[in-house]
């Protein structure tokens, strides 16, 4: 147990940050982290020993997040595959702490897969190989998604928020 704690705990701040970036809610984010850690502990022995722990933990967290989105079906009666493309398109922070000129609104303009690669590489400092492992895609896909994500973010900020907000519906 000491071994598990000493390996996992240094990664918890990053797992909390990624969860918060996805969910934008303190409690919900820590719930997601807790689920992630519980699953990691339960499956500790099944972890591939040649695998990367950081990539493994972020993969668990992201998969739980996506499962939660699939299960919750919060977005109304019509939830198709495209719901995953556009998760979750925040309407804004209820307490108003997230402002429209916030870089985070640019994040919301991205499809989840681009958002995740941007966060994992650009914020959580996963190597491209770790990101490929966490997202379960080839390395080349990581690079092209990253490229598209940054381009889209830049265009979103250049073009202005109004157009993008209309697109989000």
């Amino acid at each position, binding site marked *: 147990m000491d071994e598990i704690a000493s390996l996992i705990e240094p990664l918890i701040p990053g797992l909390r940050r990624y969860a918060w970036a996805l969910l934008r809610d303190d409690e919900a984010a820590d719930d997601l982290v807790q689920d992630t850690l519980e699953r990691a502990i339960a499956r500790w022995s099944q972890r591939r020993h040649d695998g990367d722990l950081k990539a493994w933990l972020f993969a668990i967290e992201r998969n739980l997040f996506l499962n939660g989105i699939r299960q919750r079906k919060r977005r109304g009666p019509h939830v198709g595959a495209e719901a995953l493309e556009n998760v979750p398109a925040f309407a804004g922070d209820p307490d108003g702490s997230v402002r429209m000129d916030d870089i985070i609104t640019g994040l919301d303009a991205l499809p989840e897969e681009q958002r995740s690669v941007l966060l994992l590489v650009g914020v959580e400092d996963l190597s491209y190989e770790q990101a490929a492992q966490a997202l379960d895609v080839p390395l080349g896909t990581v690079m092209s998604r990253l490229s598209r994500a*940054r381009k889209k973010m830049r265009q979103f*900020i250049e073009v202005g928020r109004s157009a993008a907000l209309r697109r989000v519906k």
Partner: protein
Amino acid sequence: MTDERPIGEDDLQAYIDGRLMPARREEVEAYLAANPTAAAETALEAKHREALRARLAFKASEPIPARLRVANLMGAKRRAPRFRLASVAAAVAWLAIGLVCGALGSAWIRDGHLRPFTHGTNAAGDAITAYRTYVTERLHPVEVAADQEAHLVQWLSRRLGKPLVAPNLNQNGYRLMGGRLLPAGNQPAAMFMYEDGRGNRLTLYARSGDAEGSTAFRFENQDGVSAFSWIDDGLSYVVAGRIGREDLLTVAETIYKQFESQAPPGRSKL
């Protein structure tokens, strides 16, 4: 590797992330110098990367909530089913105790045994007093140290007349320091002391119960010292410490679970 390879989007991304080898970085910089549009876009994207990092940095610098500590999660992991079972068992036990008390109550009163049925409070109060007395002790917190654990447990078991076990709280981050014998009214009590890596101490207090059977956990807090008490198999147990209710509950459940899994006749083994 550093020859004529054309610059690709992967190079530009790695440039933005600062992950290029120096030789390749120079090539990318030369390319950007010759392509002002690409240079402007790349600079903007690097700026947005930094802005996002700065915006999210606060979350990673927050202290980690206790519920996300691995030790607490490992304690809680096996808790749910066990705790429900324990509650059911406790409810049944309380019912039985109530029936017995009702039946014997009049006899007790007749015999002058008018003793209030407040074992938990008493044991908890005594345990908290013992905690206050010995946990702050620097020189002699325990009478017999953990390196003589077998002897300690045997000795205390003999004095209490019941087989005791010093539970292993490593999974909660606490190590056994040792224990001591205490007076408790007209009977002896045993106390084990534990310490975590930062010098926080917990005690487990045990004495012959004032009732048979078992009870649910009961929580009490006196001036910052928290205690969970319960009765199991004729012994009153109290775990006390200056930690939050949730953390202490995790410890109490660990102890309870270990006693359950070592139920008689294996009880007396370490």
